[in-house]
């Protein structure tokens, strides 16, 4: 089946089997391996991407369901060589060790901060319910999200001329 899926602003037209998962389309058909495949059972969240602005587990979606949709992956977060505040904050706050869960963490946190620009710690931990990290114990991930929320607020303020 022919599908047209836009990933990080670039259109990918491919002839695929309906059973191909979105996560494999992203990694194998589009060659974007920043999205990781962890448990493949909708639990770990490593494969999280944004589809039409919504955080989804790309292992639990067939690529054909995303036909015509816009997907954002970790590779699409940086702008003109400058990292997204979430990426910067994960780096600065040491919000990762092995890094396997990080792309999914960042995409879920992107959804969180879109819906709630100033989450408290409970809300951050609640939002990360579906993203497992086996290294950090989550402390520094929470700090990274708090730091990113602050930066994004500051930048929005600056952009609005405050």
């Amino acid at each position, binding site marked *: *089946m022919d599908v047209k899926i836009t990933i990080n602003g670039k259109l990918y037209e491919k002839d695929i*089997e*309906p*059973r191909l*998962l979105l996560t494999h389309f992203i990694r194998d058909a589009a060659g974007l391996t920043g999205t990781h495949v962890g448990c*493949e*059972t*909708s*639990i770990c*969240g490593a494969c*999280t991407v944004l589809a039409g602005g*919504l*955080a*989804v*587990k790309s292992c*639990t*979606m*067939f690529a*054909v*369901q995303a036909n015509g949709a816009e997907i954002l992956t970790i590779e699409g977060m940086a702008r003109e060589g400058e990292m997204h505040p979430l990426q910067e904050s994960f780096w600065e706050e040491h919000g990762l060790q092995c890094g396997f869960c990080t792309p999914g963490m960042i995409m*879920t946190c992107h*959804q*969180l901060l879109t819906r709630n620009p100033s989450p408290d710690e409970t809300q951050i931990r609640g*939002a990360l*319910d*579906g*993203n497992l990290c086996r290294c950090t114990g989550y402390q520094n991930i929470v700090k990274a999200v708090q730091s990113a929320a602050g930066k994004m607020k500051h930048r929005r303020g600056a952009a609005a001329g405050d």
Partner: protein
Amino acid sequence: MIAQQFDYTVAASVAEAVALLQKHGDRARILAGGHSLIPMMKLRLAMPEMLIDIGRITELSYIKEESSYVQIGALTTHHAIESSVIVQRRCPALSEAAGLIGDIQVRNKGTIGGSIAHADPAADYPASILAFDAVVITIGPKGERQIPASQFFLDLMTTALEPNEIVRAINVPTRTGRSASAYVKMAQKASGFAICGASAVVELDASGALAHAAIGVTGVGNRAFRATETEKALHGRKPTAELLRAACEKAAGGVSALDDIHASAEYRLDLVRIFARRALEKAIERAGN
């Protein structure tokens, strides 16, 4: 984990979905949010030869407020139900159930219609669907049917839905006066599925006695059930702590409980007693305020 090969087609309207289902019969399954069906297909517990994708029928995604009920379209996501001001105000138990399903990503994709059609015994909604005496509106080649919740969930992953029917919407009747509802659960840690979930819908009369008390329980038996013995023991009486405790002793009735690595049957039955009481306490407190 790769699903077995299948053909895929998109239905642009409800009528088209019904026609496609009629045409392809048992070969086909309906795909909504996919968060019950796709995991089953990846494990090859489900191997449909064709998927009819109704996920693009936007007219099935809505929450509509009427004077005596709230109607929720089948494709409304758990996130939309969780964050709906209408559902929060009129049927908080349902909004709480939606907010406790899986995680953000799952709630962004999973739908209420898909969840109830799948009828997982550990799904959250059925407890509230039963407690509210909701009505499931289905559509098939012969038109619409209105199936009362009490007749909808038949057994493990089995509903009253005919093979050529689709869930179109759910009507949730709501009470006026001093009424409220609440949903509480013990969740399986990794998946978030209910080991025991209880939903209570109550109404207090002017004297503070229970004019109505309904309790739905999920996660415990092959299908969700009503705690009818508890309801009878509460009817018309003032909800003192002793009464609630005593009435909830009978909450599991004679149900045969599931027994698995997450919880023994005995433990599940004990949880019914506790969670029925907690749901009632929360609902009564809300109704009193």
